[in-house]
């Protein structure tokens, strides 16, 4: 038996030591066109009852750590939202493959 505290999940960044000395980049710019489009899709799909915020979170929080930090904010959203719509059969996985 160990009394070590389990490492927090990837998305649980409160107090995370790896960012202790990272200044906050004072970026005020609104989302770019890509981000706004993803943001709008999330709201539309939620309003149509096809997904919830908790499902969005589950999809984001399941992204492996290295990819989580490599992807931009709305890129994580897109991974989650498109994955959810495949799971639910709203779109087919083949339609999303390159």
């Amino acid at each position, binding site marked *: 038996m160990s009394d070590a505290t389990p490492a927090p999940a990837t*998305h*649980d*960044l*409160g*107090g*995370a030591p*790896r*960012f*202790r000395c*990272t*200044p*906050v*980049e*004072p*970026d*005020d*710019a*609104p*989302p*770019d066109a*890509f*981000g*706004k*489009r*993803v*943001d*709008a*899709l999330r*709201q*539309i*799909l939620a*309003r*149509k009852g*096809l997904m919830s*915020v*908790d499902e969005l*979170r589950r999809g*984001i929080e399941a992204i492996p750590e290295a990819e989580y*930090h490599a*992807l*931009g*904010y*709305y*890129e994580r959203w*897109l*991974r989650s*939202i*498109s994955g959810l*719509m495949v799971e639910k059969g*709203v*779109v*087919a996985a083949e*339609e*999303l*493959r*390159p």
Partner: protein
Amino acid sequence: MAAPPRPDSVALLDRFVAALLARGVVTEAEIAEQVARTDAASPEIGARMVARAWTDPAYRELLLRDGSAAAEAAGVSMAGMPPLGVLEDTDRVHHLVVCTLCSCYPRAVLGYPPHWYKSSAYRARAVRDPRGVLAEWGTVLPDHVELRVVDSTADYRWMVLPQRPAGTEGWDAARLASIVTRDALVGVALPKAG
């Protein structure tokens, strides 16, 4: 600046939208309308609520008791939105809002969360070194002022009611609202009269 999306992400979005359009789940008009509606929300809404609370004690009481009702009273539809809580700054307590898990933010009254609010550095350090974070905005609180950091969540969103600064006596609501910035509503900055 936030990095632009990777080419594979841009391509994934194009394929995803094409699939949704082909199946009639969404239309381009719906997407455009949703973007326009989201663009319309801005920190000016929260600033107007704060200015009203500074000049109208009954509204201040409502704002602190039920932020969602106060937003509705300011003409904002809160249908389908998580509840809004409002944190009252005083001479002794200052509040700072963060979402350590992601980016939860009172979007109905403040608009899109800024990039820095969603950044790993802000999420990690707001709870570990809040005075250091505030210093990066040039905000220095006296040592005797307690700093309370509040985590916004998927189920409850927070906004700060800052103190009305000295030197604003006699100002009308529009002029008061003009000094209440988005940063002040999150708690990284303080409204200034000058």
